[in-house]
């Protein structure tokens, strides 16, 4: 039998490490769009990590948070993109 729980947690750890790596792009830029892009990737990673944790720890309620986060991630990316194009046009 393959230790699924360990694998899922290991994958989660790898995803966090990749998130730290992507953080370099968020800090470095050079443009705002680069940063937003990096945050978007980070957000997708977060959603996946949450899903992995939900499966590994067997807490399905984490999936609800993941759902909220998936939507928020999108909202933030679009809002900032729109903001940088026409200042004040966020809403």
């Amino acid at each position: 039998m393959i230790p699924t729980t360990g694998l899922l947690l290991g994958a989660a750890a790898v995803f966090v490490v990749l998130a730290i790596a992507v953080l370099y792009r968020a800090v470095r830029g050079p443009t705002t769009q680069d940063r937003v892009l990096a945050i978007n990737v980070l957000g997708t990673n977060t959603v996946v990590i949450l899903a992995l944790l939900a499966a590994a720890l067997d807490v399905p309620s984490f999936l609800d948070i993941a759902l909220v986060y998936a939507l928020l991630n999108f909202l933030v990316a679009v809002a900032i993109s729109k903001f940088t194009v026409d200042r004040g046009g966020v809403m």
Partner: protein
Amino acid sequence: MADHESAPVGDADADADADADSDGPILVPVGESVSLRTTVAHAIDVASDGDRGGVHFVAPVPLHDIDDVDPSVREATQELLERVEAWAAEDDPEGALTVETAIIGADEYLFGPDDYAAVLAAYADEHGIDRLVIDPEYNPRGNASIIQSMEAELASLGFAVEEAPFARRVRRGRFLQRGGRAQFLTLFGVSFLFYQLLGGFAMTRFDLLTGAASAVIVSAMLYRVSLGDRLRVAALARRSARLVLFVPYLLYEIIVSNLLVSYAILHPKLPIEPRMTEVRTAVWGSMPITTLANSITLTPGTLSVLVDGRIFTVHTLVPTAREGLFDGSLERAVRFVFYGRAAAGIATPRERGDCRILGEEDETE
């Protein structure tokens, strides 16, 4: 505003019979839109280049808008036409062209795009016009999908129809569309089901009640935003069935080209060759265009950067992806989903000559 009852400004019938052959004046349907100014300029350009003699700007306004709903609509339309006239005079300082404006359709019941097309055609026939310039953003009754079919309708009636070019700036469209009981109920049903889905279908009285309350709030706020088109159940069912076929194909495309792009990214030399390209796609309407744009972005190696009507500005990462884009397999698949098998097999963008690489022209010079 004083004489707004006499709708046609200027002497409409004077030169009607003189220009009855192919060199007649140009007809431009106008309405409140962001690109109206550029359209007016373009129409004047076309008319002076082709020695067309005149331009007619007409504002189709349906009866039930102009007198039943809001009497000020007529005033506003009249004002719009005066503005257009002033712009036309600006673009044609010598006054070489006869510019005429009119409100049409005010005594008819205009509903679908075909009604608009019919009213425009009647006006055109009356004045010996065979050529139209259409504002890309012109949108009778604010329905996003109506314009393309009005164009098609006019073209099928034997008119030369041309869309004015327009480089769009930041766009602030109206979100609101028409919505009725059907839209409300559909949205309510979907939201309610979604709520129950998140609750794991517990089906307690609390869940049902709060779900219904949330669904009412959601659909009351959004029923005029989210479902624009009239609901046609049969067409929707057929589309959904074809969509089921489309998804595996899209997944296959995604995985294959992902491997390609992954190879390029992991290769130590980074063998990429990014280019901006422009493709004039053969899909119409907001939903198909959205689907195609998203599919293009999802397929690795191609990223839709700007979508302006049917013209997509696509960034491509590797040559293979660029070839795939120009071969138009995704475009064909999207046409298959939305218009059926018959529409799928038309020429590829490459064969149509509807694609080019931006910036290449500069290099050859």
